[in-house]
């Protein structure tokens, strides 16, 4: 397989963005071109998914080039079992989000689409970059498009939310930048594969800097307060991408960098992260319950769900890690779909206040049926994708310490509580007069939701293709953490 596939995957949306920028301002045309553009990375990601060799742990396709030769920084992309699912998810979610919100944005359509396409390039790059500086570039490049997406097409408090989102993430990532600089000084390289074999100094501090950056992005309690605001104020497609993909950048970073580069510290810090994960699961669910705003409710549910991912990551065994990986994908699909649902409702009611709804299931039966699928996927009902991921995480947690699993299982109860509460208030109950005038589900909305529901069922019923592609990578990572930890004494490293 030619290695330029990776570059093509990453940069095809960028090319699309340029194209959209150059085309005349005819909204329909622009939207069509944008959607067609996103099909390119989808096709390429699909091909990667198809071609992925099973049982191979390393990066099975890499691409190298010189980038800043003067300081020995390279252009290095690569895909393995850990990044592949996320690449596939990204390539899948963007067209779905674009189709699902076809004409939800009616002002400055060109800018909107250009930003979304830029965002896709940045997200894909984040997941594929194998040079730390390149990773950081993509990581930060995500911020600006997202900032504008929230700030320009968001709802009432958009400026505040956009800035808050930016400041929180930036605050963490600059620390990561320092850590990257430190790594460079210590080893003379930022090539991920070379760093794997290098002797790293002051691992504790480096780990901490990386971990804080990722924890804010995840977001891990108590660094999560940017998230409800950003999710709530963002336009629908923005929320879908934000929840579905941007949060994954944090969890992906934890797995890819924190675990892999600093295994000893990761082991030492695992209890802390597990605790934070479990706190996040319970806290997010508890806070979600009394939110009057549907979008805020979904946003807090993300805090809860991402807690599972962190928990699974740091139990440091194959089931937990595989579950965490799968749960990243699942959360992307389910919560992305949830935000799409809210977007469909918002299109009709222009409010997100749960009190304004009631009886939607009577007026929009198909929509309600699809919604229930999504809700139960989010509530991890067996047969849906959520169950597979959460169960694996719980299994991993149980192996580590049954008490963690027991606490986390509490989150399973709570997710049913708040999600069904939402369903009861929005979809059920007497039909409110305002709701009676709701337009039925439109074809593009339906198409996006059906695509998501099919993904929900695919992973729920037959997750093998996903699990098999990451299994080897997961196992080798777990072994790496375990073996290094045995070889060296765990601890918080020295001072930088």
């Amino acid at each position, binding site marked *: 397989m030619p290695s330029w596939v990776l570059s093509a995957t990453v940069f095809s949306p960028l090319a699309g963005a340029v194209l959209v920028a150059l085309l005349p301002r005819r909204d329909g045309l622009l939207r069509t071109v944008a959607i067609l553009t996103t099909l390119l990375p989808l096709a390429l990601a699909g091909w990667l998914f198809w071609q992925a060799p099973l049982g191979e742990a390393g990066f099975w396709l890499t691409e190298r080039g010189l980038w800043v030769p003067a300081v020995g920084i390279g252009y290095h992309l690569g895909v393995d079992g850990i990044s592949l699912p996320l690449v596939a998810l990204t390539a899948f979610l963007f067209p779905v989000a674009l189709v699902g919100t076809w004409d939800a944005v009616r002002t400055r359509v060109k800018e909107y689409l250009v930003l979304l396409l830029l965002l896709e390039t940045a997200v894909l790059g984040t997941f594929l970059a194998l040079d730390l500086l390149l990773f950081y570039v993509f990581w930060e490049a995500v911020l600006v498009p997202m900032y504008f997406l929230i700030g320009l097409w968001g709802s009432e408090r958009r400026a505040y939310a956009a800035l808050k989102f930016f400041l929180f993430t930036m605050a963490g990532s600059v620390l990561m930048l320092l850590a990257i600089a430190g790594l460079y000084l210590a080893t003379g390289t930022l090539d991920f594969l070379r760093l794997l074999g290098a002797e790293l100094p002051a691992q504790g501090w480096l780990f901490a800097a990386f971990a804080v950056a990722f924890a804010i992005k995840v977001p891990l309690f108590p660094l999560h307060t940017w998230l409800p605001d950003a999710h709530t104020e963002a336009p629908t497609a923005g929320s879908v991408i934000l929840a579905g993909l941007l949060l994954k950048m944090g969890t992906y970073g934890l797995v890819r960098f924190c675990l892999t580069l600093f295994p000893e510290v990761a082991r030492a810090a695992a209890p802390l992260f597990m605790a934070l994960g479990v706190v996040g699961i319970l806290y997010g669910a508890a806070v979600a319950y009394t939110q009057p705003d549907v979008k805020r409710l979904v946003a807090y549910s993300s805090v809860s769900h991402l807690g599972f991912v962190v928990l699974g990551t740091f139990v440091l065994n194959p089931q937990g890690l595989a579950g965490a990986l799968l749960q990243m994908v699942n959360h992307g699909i389910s919560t992305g779909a949830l935000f799409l649902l809210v977007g469909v409702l918002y299109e009709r009611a222009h409010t997100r206040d749960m009190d304004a709804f009631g009886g939607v299931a009577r007026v929009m039966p198909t929509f309600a049926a699809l919604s229930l699928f999504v809700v139960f996927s989010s509530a991890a009902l067996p047969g849906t994708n959520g169950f597979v991921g959460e169960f*694996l995480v719980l299994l991993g947690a149980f192996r580590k310490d049954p008490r963690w699993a027991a606490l986390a299982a509490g989150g399973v109860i709570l997710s049913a509580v708040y999600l069904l509460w939402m369903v009861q208030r929005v979809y059920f109950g007497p039909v409110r007069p305002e709701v009676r005038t709701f337009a039925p589900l439109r074809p593009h909305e339906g198409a996006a939701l059906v695509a998501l529901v099919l993904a929900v069922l695919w992973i729920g019923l037959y997750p093998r293709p996903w699990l098999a592609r990451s299994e080897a990578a997961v196992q080798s990572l777990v072994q790496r953490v375990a073996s290094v930890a045995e070889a060296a004494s765990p601890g918080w490293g020295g001072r930088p």
Partner: protein
Amino acid sequence: MVPWIVALPLAGALVNGLVGGRLGRRGTSLVACLAVLGAFLLSVAATQALVASPERPAQVVRLFEWIAVADFRISAAFQWDPLSALLALVVTGVGFLIHVYSVGYMAEDPDYSRYFTYLNLFVASMLVLVLGANLLVLFVGWELVGLCSYLLIGFWFERPTAAAAGRKAFVVNRIGDAAFVVGILSVWGLLGTLEFREIWRLLGEGGGALRGHPGLVAAALLLFAGATGKSAQLPLYVWLPDAMEGPTPVSALIHAATMVTAGVFLVGRLWPLFEAAGPVLAAVVAPVGAATALFAASVAVAQYDLKRVLAYSTISQLGYMFLALGAGAGHAAFFHLTTHAFFKALLFLAAGSVMHAVHGQIDLRHLGGLRRSMPLTFLGFVVGALSLSGIPPLSGFWSKEEILHAARAHAAGIWVVAMATSFVTAYYATRAAVLAFWGEPADPHAHPHDPPPAMAWPMVGLVVLSAFGGFLGAQWAGAPLRAFLQPLFGDHGEASSVAGAEVAVAVAVALAGVVAGWWAHRARQEPDLGPLGRALAAQWGVEAAYHRAVVRPAKALSQLLAERVDAGAVDRAASGLADLVVRAAAAVRTWQTGNVRQYAAGVLAGAVVLFAYWVLR
């Protein structure tokens, strides 16, 4: 063949769900009923094969590898053995009858195809539950039946009470399910497998080295906690009475005959595990079952909503089954499970007929005198009530007798409770029948009549089963059920001889209950039970206590976390930092006065500081 048993109703659900609207009512009903009938016939065929082979080995069909990571590998697989066969027959058999009944009952409903979609989906899910070859597949079914229960309870979702009841059912079940999940994890952690056959193999013969292992005890307790949720046992029973918000056929199928027995099935399925877990069965399962049986029966005495009476009765009867399991009489529990499915479904269908006839009226105080106008319904209800009360020779008598016998052999205290329950059961069953069918019609202008054939024939079928179903397990008939289940529960536990003083006492107690019920309500009056009556009507205050101790605090805690902690502290910390920066920014700006001389002073000050640094260095 086995996967097809599941596939047929699933296909029915799919067809009705996707294109049900275009099939028309007749098409929808045909698809739904035929799917279940097909599943029933397939089950019968498969059961015959099983009966034919004397060892009755469990037959496992693997479909595909479902979840596999490293040493954890689980397949989607079905298992056909006597227990699943029994349950599959009950589910598809009773299910078919209720499907047919529903054709009549729901004939006027605008969401006809949605109803049958759910109902077919339920049957498929229940079959997944009973046919699953490992705990995880069982759990899939377990949760899916919960989902269907949720959907069907809230079928008339525009009624706020229905929507709330559905959610309550799901959430309360989820509490049990969470424990169940941890139980599954424990089993895997302990045994490294979730396959039933493997579990049996590893824990056969009393568990061997693992007997009484604390992990095993924990696993058994957690799994039992899951069972209490689904089977509405103390303390998680509260959802079932509210579940009566659903259409009555649903109550009959899900909340009486099949789904609620899933807990009993689970314990039976993991019988070797429970046996190996040591004291769990005797110390926990039996007392919980007994307590639930008596408690729910007592509450049923004071209910006026006919369906609620039946719901509490169901809870009570499920308590019997757990009592039996706790007493070690697995076959008795499953015998009762089967007969209970017959007579309780019959009772519900009769109640449904009543509702159908009197325009949804279900309050016993506003019913009465239906005896003459609805003879078939009257017959069905009385047969069901008497069977429930354990009056010979109806089916309930035989199965209850087995349980009482086992209880007596197990522990005197349990037996006493069981007898007391028997009395109360007969009392409230008679009370309900009297209030509904005797006396003068409550509304002289109404002309209630027996239901149309689609609803009548299933009732007839269940009347027959309720009356004569006892042969399945009765000693005089050679206890075929016991023999059938023998590979699972073994031979231990002495069979009831159905003779002698023991039976006489039991029958006497039941008759006493019937007589008391008749006597107390013969004039359609409610005897004043004083404070006891009020306590009973209020379910001993359990619901209120839950509200005070769980629901309200949970809501308050959530509110507290959202407002005080999240917005008030966590977010405030971040915005406080931002405020600090902004205040510093404002301070810095005040230095910029626009005055040149001050700026010069600033430059000079900088220079002086520089000097100072080099002097002091």
